[in-house]
């Protein structure tokens, strides 16, 4: 249990996938101008990560990992090099399926999330979290916690960023520094802030 809490705290704050590993920057820069959109995308990312990471774990554990096909009678087969292709395919398929399920059962949620779901397939944060999960050899419960809390960390970062950008509009920024440059520097300062949580030990 303690282990799970420390994974959660670590992936929300210290090891934030956006601020410490630079994952998901494309949409971060493009979307963070508007707070409402940022929140919508954040929720969608949490959602997709919570679902796809455990699914990818199951696929890796029972189809791809070295010796994973032992149940089918092929104990020597190692398909782990296929993980890149299969993870991408899973993510695309899961996003598509999620879209249909949400549309069917919760039209209100679909209206607010719908635009963002297709965007998420190409978000490197989603694939990155699945690959990290393999590299760090997490167990199933750890993977579930890691996926959900990574999503929360990303959402937190993008919402905070959009709030800061709103304030920046009234700031007197030097001409060459306006736009992308000041955003990057602000993100850097935010990353410093998030790293302070490293001092908290469980």
């Amino acid at each position: 249990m303690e282990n799970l809490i420390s994974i959660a705290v670590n992936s929300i704050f210290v090891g934030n996938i956006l601020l410490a590993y630079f994952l998901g920057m494309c949409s971060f820069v493009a979307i963070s101008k508007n707070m409402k959109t940022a929140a919508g995308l954040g929720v969608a990312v949490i959602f997709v990560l919570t679902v796809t990471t455990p699914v990818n774990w199951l696929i890796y554990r029972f189809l791809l990992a070295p010796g994973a096909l032992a149940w089918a009678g092929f104990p020597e087969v190692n398909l782990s090099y296929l993980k890149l292709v299969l993870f991408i395919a899973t993510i695309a398929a899961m996003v598509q399926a999620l879209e249909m399920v949400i549309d069917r059962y919760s039209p209100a949620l679909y209206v607010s999330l719908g635009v963002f779901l297709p965007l998420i397939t190409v978000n490197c944060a989603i694939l990155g979290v699945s690959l990290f999960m393999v590299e760090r050899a997490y167990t199933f419960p750890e993977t579930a916690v890691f996926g959900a809390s990574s999503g929360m960390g990303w959402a937190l970062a993008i919402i905070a960023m959009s709030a800061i950008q709103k304030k920046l509009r009234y700031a007197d920024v030097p001409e060459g520094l306006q736009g992308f440059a000041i955003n990057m520097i602000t993100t850097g300062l935010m990353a410093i802030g998030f790293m302070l949580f490293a001092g908290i030990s469980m």
Partner: protein
Amino acid sequence: MTPAPVQALRKSRSYKAVARALWEANPISKQILGICSALAVTVQLKTALVMSIALTFVVAFSSLIISLMRRAMPRNIRIMVEVSVIATLVILADEFLRAFMYDVSRQLSVFVGLIITNCIVLGRAEGYALSNPPCKSFVDGLANGIGYGSVLMGVAFLRELLGSGKLFGYPVIPAFFYEAGYLDNGLMRLAPGAFIIIGLFVWLEHTLLSRKKGR
């Protein structure tokens, strides 16, 4: 005066394509969007160099292959075809690194795999290779990969120099600097350093470009 062969070279189409990709159409801000995650490997020049080479390989050959197939590909499944070509090349690069440069591949960890979701690769395939002949697409991919690599290497140069006082792993800051009280800037080794350096790079670029325009 520039000699005639150089002038002829400057007029050739490949030269124009390369120059465009390397300088004119290479705003750092655009490249960074493509870089996404690759910033994580810019703590050392060595990993950044390997990453740049891997990416250049993937962009160049995916452009070549997609351009070769462009007439045979049905339009509505083209994204899927493109992604599978790119994924195959990334797997090749990843397995190659794992076999011949194991230490570096451990340091690059998941970031080689993330080349698949790199916007530049798919962007070149969609925006250039689909409508241009194979040879030109290959050159375009190569130049874009190198343009991207140069930004990565620039960031890595500053981060390794300021963060650990080394270049390619060799100490370059003389020992008496340290004796006189010089300290390495630990911030450069951490993620915020990369964000701030990119911000300053873009600032520099804006300033240079606006001066050029003002003249």
